[in-house]
């Protein structure tokens, strides 16, 4: 390897005063600030950067940019780094990928085998027998997987995103894009320009002195008029209404940032991507595209070879030849326009030695530069619904037929939409920018007018201008895709033109099928280099044309994006009660319940149960859903929502209710209290609070907009505390003002308003999920901690202690109360849960009425209530055995086989009864009291159990809570 860095040249982007040391496969090497990994390595004489995926052929520089399929490298713990794009940093540890076993290993045997058997899709045709050996084959195949190495233990970094709402976004900072951005900004638009490379200017950056000067001038003009320019950033996707994703890379390999932009007008100015040519040996190191050669020379002053053949079909190729000659390279210029083509690149050990032309000429060379034509990266335009159309005369696809005006809010300019002199491209860009700004102004005016909170739009709506730009011309270009020999079409996937032709012959004769069969275009550049050649080879194989075959769908993202950038900072809202810090101080074990973090227990849930049963406990039930319902039709609303009746509920009373969906399935349950004639406070389950609010609003707004009732969610307005236990009344008597707590004055299922610990405006209802005498206090949340502490202080001598969710679950199970979503599921209709008597079929209407009527009364051809499963209390015969929840209950069926007849939905060990207790859903035939049941443990053992007469295992008559 010999160093190939030239002496300092005008226009180079490296800083020779800042050398940077790094390692390449463990070896110390160096480059300069401004180098990419690839330019630094090339300057040091490196020619082989990777081995190919399937045949392990050596690969060198092709494009020397982001899309180069041959220079993906591992940098530290980061795989698949674009070596042609990533800027060099001191201390980088760069290693080659796909080098198995090593980059230098000459995989002759594999290559030879590849020629015979490793054709595309070979794996579909073999390894079928013997079946049991397939896992082994698979492991071997997996070792051939390309790509770098990920370290799952690498430390996560901080990622962030932002939103933007520019008037105009310009994708691409070449001359046309910069001109468009400048013109749009001059016309008053807020403009965001996104440039993929590290500096704006596009291909002018590696052009002639005049081109470089013009590039700098247009970039300066854009900055001067206030265009926001993002460099090393890519517009990766466009969705409806110009919702755009822009990834900002951090040059140095730091975390990427995602910008989500809603643009009024998008200008696509991505330029053109140079297309490789397919011929024998086209993947040999030393075969390079003209852009690659010019970038190496003019940006980084790296001489890509000593003796070059430049095969050119266009001015870019001619310019490359001229540049190479200036740099002292011996150049043989072969003109494709005169009919000369390359048929082979020959050499040994990963080196190019000679180039064979179609007329048999053999030219000694260590560098072959091809300039075969261009691919228009129409991805963004495709995402906007624009189909690419092939133009044979220009030998490339265009986003629209010649001269077609662009109707909407996505415009294109620059090379993607046509050819011309630099002045013409800049002129088209400016016209596009003006059009974009004018259209954006119309849309901004409309948006301001339509948005309720926006400033009033001044004046009349400006007209949405029609497209009156002079279209760019189209330069004729020869159609050059494949030579008379076969070569590699997709370098990253190692797919040859022979693979494609054979695939077509086997029946994979459409572009989508052959793509899937061979994996062509599925690699790192996602078809940007390969698609058109794939299409052309297929067209040739099927005796059709490129236009007829058409192109594949370009899918987002335009450039790969790290998962970290897409994820950003995690935004997962967490909700906590105002008592949270007190629970933490009290040593709670937290449990996640939806968005809420709640105390599961404070150390010993069984002891918490015993304390409630013996003394008094307090539990924070703030997540309980609460809705304030007011208005003359509030009762009407309740009657519609619940299966039971509400018209006779007295002011000062509360009632339990169940809500069903329109299919009769239990949706939610809870207690609602009547605070005034037209005023109710409804409670819902904690998990159902949000859903129920929307459910109720839907009924009100769409079915009964005439009802005079207002529903306000007040879950967070109250700290809800349940005070439970035989001594709860004694405790409250010490703290409550303005409410007579006498059992005759404040009965079970009643509600009172008053003050607790000096806090006015508390709602108290006498109910209990625990089955004990209990009071649920709803305290204005800001004073929740005060009341909670007051309860603990005032009740110290009564043995008051907080209890958590687990103790509450045990006690509710002792009492046989079901939990919606645990003891019921998505098919559980109300009669299953033992609510038959609650359902009032004589009501005029309530949600789910027809289904519940048919469930209870039967319908022609259906089973009626006997077909529904039942919720029953179950006790295992062995009192110490607690069957895990979801264990199955089985019985022997008529065919003698064991069948599933139900499942345990809840189970706990009851400290009160000192035995295991359960709720279960079982088929009606096994639901009668005293029915012997067989529960299957998770270890497969059968356990005997019995169905109980009541849901409640404890105090079925409810004497304690009424006390």
């Amino acid at each position, binding site marked *: 390897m010999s160093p190939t860095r030239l002496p300092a040249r005008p226009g180079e982007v490296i800083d020779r005063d800042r050398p940077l040391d790094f390692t390449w496969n463990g070896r110390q090497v160096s480059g300069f600030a401004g180098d990419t990994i690839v330019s630094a390595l090339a300057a040091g004489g490196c020619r082989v950067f990777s081995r190919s995926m399937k045949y392990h052929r050596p690969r060198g520089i092709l494009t020397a940019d982001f899309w180069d399929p041959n220079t993906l490298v591992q940098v530290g713990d980061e795989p698949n780094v674009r070596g042609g794009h990533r800027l060099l940093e001191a201390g980088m540890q760069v290693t080659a990928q796909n080098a198995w076993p090593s980059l230098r290993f000459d995989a002759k045997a594999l290559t030879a085998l590849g020629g015979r058997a490793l054709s595309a899709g070979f794996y579909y045709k073999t390894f079928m027998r013997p079946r049991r050996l397939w896992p082994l084959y698979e492991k071997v195949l997996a070792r051939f997987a390309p790509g770098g190495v990920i370290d799952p233990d690498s430390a996560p970094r901080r990622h962030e995103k932002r939103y933007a709402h520019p008037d105009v976004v310009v994708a691409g900072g070449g001359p046309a894009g910069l001109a468009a951005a400048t013109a749009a900004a001059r016309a008053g638009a807020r403009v965001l320009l996104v440039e993929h490379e590290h500096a704006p200017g596009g291909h002018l950056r590696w052009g002639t002195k005049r081109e470089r000067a013009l590039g700098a001038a247009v970039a300066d003009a854009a900055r001067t008029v206030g265009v926001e320019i993002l460099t090393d950033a890519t517009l990766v996707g466009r*969705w409806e209404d110009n919702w755009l994703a822009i990834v900002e890379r951090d040059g140095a390999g730091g975390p990427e940032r995602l910008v989500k932009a809603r643009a009024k007008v998008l200008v696509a100015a991505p330029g053109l991507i140079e297309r490789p040519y397919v011929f024998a040996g086209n993947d040999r190191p030393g075969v390079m595209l003209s852009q690659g050669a010019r970038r190496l020379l003019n940006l980084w002053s790296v001489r890509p070879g000593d003796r070059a053949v430049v095969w050119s079909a266009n001015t870019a190729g001619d310019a490359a030849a001229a540049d190479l000659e200036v740099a002292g390279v011996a150049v043989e210029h072969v003109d494709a326009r005169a009919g000369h083509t390359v048929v082979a690149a020959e050499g040994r050990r990963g080196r190019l030695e000679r180039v064979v032309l179609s007329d048999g000429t053999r030219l000694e060379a260590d560098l072959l530069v091809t300039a075969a034509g261009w691919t228009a990266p129409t991805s963004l335009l495709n995402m906007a619904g624009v189909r690419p159309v092939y133009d044979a005369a220009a030998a490339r696809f265009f986003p629209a037929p010649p001269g077609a005006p662009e109707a909407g809010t996505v415009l294109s300019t620059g090379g993607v939409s046509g050819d011309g002199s630099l002045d013409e491209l800049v002129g088209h860009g400016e016209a596009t920018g003006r059009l974009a700004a004018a259209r954006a102004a119309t849309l901004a005016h409309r948006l301001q007018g339509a948005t309720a909170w926006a400033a009033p739009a001044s004046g009349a709506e400006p007209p949405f201008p029609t497209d009156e730009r002079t279209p760019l011309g189209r330069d004729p270009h020869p159609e050059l895709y494949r030579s008379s020999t076969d070569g590699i079409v997709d370098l990253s996937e190692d797919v040859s033109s022979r693979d494609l032709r054979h695939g077509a012959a086997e*029946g994979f004769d459409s572009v989508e099928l052959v793509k899937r069969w061979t994996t062509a275009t599925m690699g*790192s550049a996602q078809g940007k280099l390969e698609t058109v050649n794939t299409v052309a080879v297929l067209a040739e194989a099927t005796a059709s044309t490129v236009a007829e075959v058409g192109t594949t769908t370009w899918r987002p993202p335009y450039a790969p994006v790290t998962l*970290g950038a897409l*994820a950003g900072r995690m935004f997962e809202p967490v909700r906590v009660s105002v008592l949270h810090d007190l629970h933490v101080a009290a040593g709670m074990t937290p449990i996640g319940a939806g968005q809420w973090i709640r105390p599961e227990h404070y150390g010993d849930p069984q002891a918490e149960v015993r304390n409630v049963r013996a003394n008094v406990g307090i539990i924070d039930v703030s997540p309980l859903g609460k809705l304030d319902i007011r208005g003359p039709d509030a009762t009407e609303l309740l009657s519609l929502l619940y299966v039971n009746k509400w018209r006779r509920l007295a002011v000062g009373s509360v009632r339990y209710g169940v809500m069903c969906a329109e299919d009769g399935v239990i949706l939610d349950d809870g207690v609602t209290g009547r605070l005034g004639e037209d005023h109710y406070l409804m409670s819902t389950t904690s998990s159902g609070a949000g859903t129920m609010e929307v459910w109720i609003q839907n009924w009100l707004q769409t079915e009964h907009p005439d009802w005079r009732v207002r529903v306000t969610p007040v879950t967070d307005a109250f700290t809800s505390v349940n005070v439970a236990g035989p001594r709860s009344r004694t405790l409250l008597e010490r703290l409550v003002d303005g409410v007579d707590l006498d059992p005759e004055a404040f009965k079970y299922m009643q509600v009172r308003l008053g003050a607790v610990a000096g806090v006015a405006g508390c709602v108290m209802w006498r109910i209990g999920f625990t089955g004990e005498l209990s009071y649920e206090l709803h305290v204005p949340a800001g004073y929740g901690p005060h009341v909670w502490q007051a309860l603990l202080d005032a009740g110290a001598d009564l043995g008051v202690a907080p209890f958590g969710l687990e103790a509450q679950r045990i006690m509710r199970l002792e009492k046989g109360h079901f939990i919606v979503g645990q003891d019921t599921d*998505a098919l559980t209709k109300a009669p299953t849960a033992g609510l038959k008597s609650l359902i009032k079929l004589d009501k005029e209407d309530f949600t789910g009425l027809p289904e519940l009527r048919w469930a209870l009364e039967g319908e022609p051809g259906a*089973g009626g209530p006997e077909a529904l499963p039942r919720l029953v209390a179950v006790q295992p015969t062995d009192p110490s055995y607690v069957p895990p929840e979801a*264990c199955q209950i089985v019985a022997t069926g008529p065919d003698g086989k064991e069948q*599933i007849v139900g499942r345990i939905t809840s189970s706990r060990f009851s400290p009160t009864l000192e035995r295991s207790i359960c709720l279960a859903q079982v088929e009606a035939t096994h639901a009668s009291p005293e029915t012997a049941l067989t529960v*299957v443990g998770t270890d497969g053992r059968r356990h005997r159990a019995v169905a109980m007469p009541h849901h409640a295992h404890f105090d079925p008559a409810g004497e304690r809570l009424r006390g």
Partner: protein
Amino acid sequence: MAGDGSGASPAQPIRSRRVRTRYPARYSAASLLWRGKRPWPRIWDSGDLGSSYDAVVIGGGVHGLATAYYLASNWGITNVAVVDKGYLGGGGSGRNTAIVRSNYLTPDGVAFYDRSVQLYERLAVDLNLNVMFARRGHLTLAHSDGALRTMRWRAEVNKHQGVDSDVIGPAEIKRLVPALDTSDAPRYPILGALHHPPGGIIRHDAVVWGYARAAAALGVEMHQNTEVLDIDVAGGGGPEGKGPGGRVTGVRTNRGDISAPVVVNCTAGWASLVAAMAGVRLPISTHPLQAAVTEPVKMFLPAVVVSGSLHVYVSQTDRGELVFGAAVDPLATYDTGGSLAFAEELAGHVLQLMPGLERMRLLRQWSGLCDMTPDYSPIIGPTPVAGFHCDVGWGTYGFKAAPVAGEQLAACIAGGQVPELIEPFTLSRFAEGRLVGEKGAAAVGH
């Protein structure tokens, strides 16, 4: 407990006439070496579209092709045309994440998918094409006690049906998939998982091609770029004699009209539209389901990992790519343009599970169409229009059911009776109010 056992009596393939497939060239390692660089015969051939067939299958995806294959191989019905408006396998078959498993919730669902896994296991040999079924094992993570309960529910039903599933804890999860963060640090910590060793991934395109090639070798015709424009029905109660009570007589396509006594709707994404051509209204809403793939890295993820509450599933292919899927997009649409929100959500959730993957890059995202039914279960079998059969409504899990759906639907068409395995999934269940309980697995877990 769904499926009350009423309806048609069990119908297994009673008079199956298994036909030997005659391939123009058999695939094997030996023939691969022997042929060398010479091209292989066509994998299937499509001649001119005929004017009449014994059956027309609409949809050249894995379901349509499997149905045609089993009609031909199990029942000797070979005068069959499979028509597709695009190319074979271009719909959901080529867009799914190729996960195969049978760890469903209801006994009906488990039995059904278990049969499918059995068929998949021997598919490479049956079809003489390697579908590359990789039995990686399948982990469904639970992040809440409710989810854990649902996992146990599934495991216990699975075990009862003889399917290998069990609930495992964080330590065992970490042992199986070291890249997962099983600490209690994440917002949604991993509390446990449903482990299903028989689950895995498969090369979805290969399944399509295998069925197409085998069906073609039996005489079935494959017609691509053939779009069905209308379905002819006579004697029905609706307009033009369509609808319930009618009998199907043929289909009209952009390449000509076909008469056929049996027409099978095996479309995904267009099920409602095709059914409407016969005058049948379906309980289906069409939603896009998105998927994405990363750049390849060396193997580090040995199992398929699913998190229901984080709406993500991920596996690593033989090529080293991570393939992701998510929940269906809540917006009902036929547009497959995909969304950015999907990629954001997906990446966020993947990194919650495996924080070390933040430097991996998303390479490509795409979407397919899913026909969602109210009970998350498919619609298979006869419809109120005689001769018009459906194999639709597969939601997000159609790929894994293709072999059994094709086998059983073929039996249903040829045998004239609804087989026991698909009896719970007929269209009539909606009008009769006997929905399948699979939704329980999706909806329970507060």
